[in-house]
């Protein structure tokens, strides 16, 4: 139990540090187990230093920086033990266009490294244009949902 958690922590920490620097185009970050010597009772602290900025805890970062850091953690966990399916529900909402692009680059990389199938729920035009296919959910009849295929090329034209 304890050894497995510590082994997972080491692996995730390594992945997280790499992903953070990759997503931020620089800087560094690490995870720490705090508040207890027993890993099964410890807290997970996140220390990060975006490029050109001082090291601080996650709480001092901007909204978008916090989101990008959390994504580095989530994918750090994912890479340690890839799931057959990954669904991300509007995780790109707080990101600016440049960071949404980096997020999509990361998704492309994950599809190269794993067999995982991804469902990406989004309102972001940039994200839509980077998908392999699009489904639209509509409520033509009030309160009743329907699924339709959406033409990707139309979505891409919207972002051009």
């Amino acid at each position: 139990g304890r050894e497995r958690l510590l082994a997972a922590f080491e692996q995730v920490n390594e992945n997280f540090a790499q992903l953070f620097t990759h997503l931020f185009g620089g800087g560094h970050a690490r995870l720490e187990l705090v508040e207890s010597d027993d890993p099964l009772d410890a807290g997970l602290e996140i220390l990060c230093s975006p490029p050109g900025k001082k090291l601080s805890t996650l709480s001092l970062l901007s909204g978008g920086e916090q989101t990008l850091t959390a994504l580095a953690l989530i994918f750090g966990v994912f890479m340690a033990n890839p799931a057959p399916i990954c669904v991300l529900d509007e995780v790109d909402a707080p990101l600016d266009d440049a960071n949404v692009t980096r997020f999509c680059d990361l998704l492309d990389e994950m599809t190269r490294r794993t067999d995982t199938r991804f469902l990406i729920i989004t309102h972001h035009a940039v994200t839509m244009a980077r998908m392999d296919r699009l489904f639209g959910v509509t409520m033509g009849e009030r309160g009743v949902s329907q699924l339709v295929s959406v033409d990707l090329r139309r979505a891409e034209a919207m972002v051009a």
Partner: protein
Amino acid sequence: MRFTRLRLTGFKSFVDPTDLVIADGLTGVVGPNGCGKSNLLEALRWVMGENRPTAMRGGGMEDVIFAGTATRGAKNFAEVSLAIDNGQRLAPAGFNDSDTLDIVRRITRDAGSAFKVNAKDVRARDVQMLFADASTGAQSPALVRQGQISELINAKPKARRRILEDAA
């Protein structure tokens, strides 16, 4: 194990039988606010054995049954089925002797949930174990709910540590 199709009938706003085909790579899901996108993720977690109504934004397990609208009556049951390609025979023992796995969960008003795998009755626990053995399941950290990133950012350090337990 490759997930290939999610089918919803009477599940929340998806009253008519609806198929979500799950293909390789990146599939985008788009649409206006309130049209049903997040309901799709909840349907997936539900068929994998999610058993906490609060995790489905509801008060009780029956809240996932189509509740009716101004023009359509409420339904009596909700059903979600998940089709999995098992051509590589990587499924856990006991479920590993066919090319496809069909996992079905159905809840009927006043009668609770029933699970089937390839038409054979199973317990909720069997389904949860099946997905756990495949590195997924309703609690998988790869299933990120709307607002969950905010929760992770604002969580106390001890609550955050649980994300590691899912990786271990």
